């Protein structure tokens, strides 16, 4: 999506508008067979075996309301139930419990499509779709030209859809949805596909719809889009609403949820296990220190593996000396996913003179905050232990501490965020 993340949405006050979508206590489960029994043959072979089902609660008590003219975002991870929710709103699935009320004509755009018959031409599909949406055949035929024109498919309208590329299909579907001139639009993940120019077109359309006072429910993974288009949003996870309201807060919660769920080990960058000793320590020297524990904390002191962009790294490291360390120096190094060293910092014991020693077996705890100017991405933190830092006897041992993720909505190019406070002044040439 081409949106400028720095442009803030001007907040609109829509609270006087009537509620046009009202969902209360909505529940939907699917029975997932443990053994797929689809044929009579299987039934004859195991006539007595009862098909066992696992109940999958795709939606487990969803309540929300959308006002007329609102741009309402729904975000959530894959499988969280977003498409199921839209399908119930669009009367494609039937809810198990709860009530759904809606006012006005609806145009759904579910899972990248509006329901095509691929054996028919674009022309026939446009007519068919129009009739399904409630237009008469004449009205449906009348909008054909507008639809293919917006989709830039004039030359292909008599081509069967099975010969369309996926990009052409999405364009046709999106165009159909827009030209349906409905009061409420349900849009599921349109932004995930299409080239840059199509995405720009979507963005233009969204802005136009906003201005025209259309009600739109938008499912997307693009948090920049949520922030720039939506008036309100909600985050669903495992069939529950876990956050609702301000798009910014919801987007943030989504990103946090996404990264919290990932265990760093699963997606290791090819680094070693935590605490493992770096390969390139100088051989023939006793190992001098052992990692006991290391972690990042959030403000409440809870351990985290992700840090929001700009939040300080609250670092904690416990190391045990395996031999006497005279005048030690701890150097920390941050590498990004491409193994590029992004930055580093170091720390000595806070004593001067002869006390600057860690005895064998003693534990050191290093903790504090590090200013974080990292851009979103995955990073590895290593600690290098230096003995006798000024002497020639520089014995170094590297210890992998942990991987962490910096997340956020801003898209800063490069490795670090710059803090700029610039003035721009215009002046005449010979001022």
């Amino acid at each position, binding site marked *: 999506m081409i949106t400028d993340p720095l442009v803030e949405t001007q907040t609109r006050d829509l609270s006087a508008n009537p509620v*046009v979508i009202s969902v209360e206590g909505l529940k939907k489960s699917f029975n997932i067979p443990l053994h797929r029994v689809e044929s009579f043959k299987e039934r004859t072979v195991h006539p007595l075996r009862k098909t066992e089902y696992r109940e999958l609660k795709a939606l487990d008590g969803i309540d929300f309301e959308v006002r007329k003219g609102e741009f309402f975002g729904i975000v959530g991870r894959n499988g969280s139930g977003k498409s199921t929710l839209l399908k119930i709103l669009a009367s494609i699935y039937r809810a198990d419990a709860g009530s759904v009320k809606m006012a006005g004509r609806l145009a759904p755009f579910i899972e990248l499509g509006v329901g095509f018959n691929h054996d028919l031409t674009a022309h026939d599909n446009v007519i068919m779709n129009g009739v399904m949406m409630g237009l008469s055949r004449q009205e449906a035929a009348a909008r054909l030209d507008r639809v293919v024109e917006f989709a830039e498919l004039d030359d292909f309208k008599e081509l069967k859809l099975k010969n369309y590329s996926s990009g052409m299909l999405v364009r046709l579907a999106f165009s159909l949805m827009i030209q349906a001139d409905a009061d409420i639009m349900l849009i599921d993940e349109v932004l995930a596909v299409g080239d840059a120019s199509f995405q720009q077109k979507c963005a233009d359309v969204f802005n136009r719809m906003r201005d025209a006072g259309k009600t739109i429910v938008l499912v997307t993974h693009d948090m920049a889009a949520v922030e720039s288009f939506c008036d309100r949003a909600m985050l669903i996870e495992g069939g529950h609403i876990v956050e609702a309201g301000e798009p910014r807060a919801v987007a943030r919660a989504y990103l946090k949820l996404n990264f919290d769920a990932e265990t760093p080990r699963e997606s290791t960058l090819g680094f070693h296990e935590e605490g493992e000793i770096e390969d390139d320590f100088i051989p023939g020297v006793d190992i001098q220190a052992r990692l006991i524990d290391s972690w990042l904390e959030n403000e409440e002191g809870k351990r985290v593996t992700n840090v929001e962009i700009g939040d300080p790294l609250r670092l904690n490291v416990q190391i045990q000396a395996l031999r006497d360390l005279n005048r030690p120096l701890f150097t920390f190094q941050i590498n990004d996913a491409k193994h590029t060293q992004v930055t580093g910092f170091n720390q000595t014991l806070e004593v001067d003179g002869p006390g600057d020693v860690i005895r064998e077996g003693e534990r050191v705890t290093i903790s504090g905050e590090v200013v974080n100017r990292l851009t979103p991405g995955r990073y590895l933190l290593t600690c290098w232990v230096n003995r006798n830092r000024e002497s020639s006897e520089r014995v170094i041992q590297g210890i992998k501490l942990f991987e962490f993720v910096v997340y956020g909505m801003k898209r800063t190019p490069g490795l670090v965020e710059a803090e700029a406070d610039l003035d721009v002044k215009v002046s005449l040439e010979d001022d």
Partner: protein
Amino acid sequence: MTDGSPTAAAPASGGPDPGLQEVTGPSALGGGWRRSRDLLYLIAVNDFKKTYFDTVLGYVWSLFRPLILFAVLLFVFTQIFRIGDDVPHYPVMLLFNIVVFTFFQEATLAAVTSVVAQEGVVRKTQFPRLVIPLAVVLTALFNFGVNLVVVLVFLLASGVPVEWTWLFFPFIVAILTVITVAVSLLVSALFVRFRDVGIIWGVLATALFYATPVLYPIEVVPERFHEIVLINPLTPIFIELRHLVIDNSAPTALDAAGGWLGLLPAFLITVALCLIAAKVFSREAPRIAEEL
């Protein structure tokens, strides 16, 4: 709301829209009569176009199957078994019966996979599911109509007299269409969950072809089997059609059944079939999209 999870209730102020209506989910029917009619028409026309314009020989194919069948069966029953020898207008009757039965068979066999074949549309749009199998029957009716023109030419050419009883033909076809629709609904709904229905119905339809007086007139069936043959709801239809269209001296369904009571089983089966089909289809319709 009870477990204290967040809800996205809109900030209070403006009330609900007066047009707020309960959304009840997908169903077999509903969503406006005009829309259903237009959809039915469009799906049927598209299917019709597909068979007529997408193939080189177009219409010839839809006559091809009944004609080949006719040629072979005519040979078998006039040259080998000689059933047809004593039957007035046997070749015409055979062609006529085959064309009528083809309507029933073509519609119901196409109906089996129809809902699944429209998967792309069913999964993404809300519309009365009933129109899919109905459109299949409608397409078969188009074909039937066109084939009847050929039969008519044949009828007149072989000297079958034009009778006023031909006027009853549409009524009998209406009854046949009701049965065809009922079977189509049943098999299309069941096929979504049980794919074996396709095979089972294929076998049953072939069996019915022989169990119904299509190839033979009812009077060659030994009297003691009449009761059994007449359980099949299609039997009275074919007996009656022959009487009305081909040969006024042939027995009516009532004659063959020996009174109204003899027609009762076929009647009850037809009613039961319709009720079951309606029930099964409306039960399955809301779940078709999620079970595909």
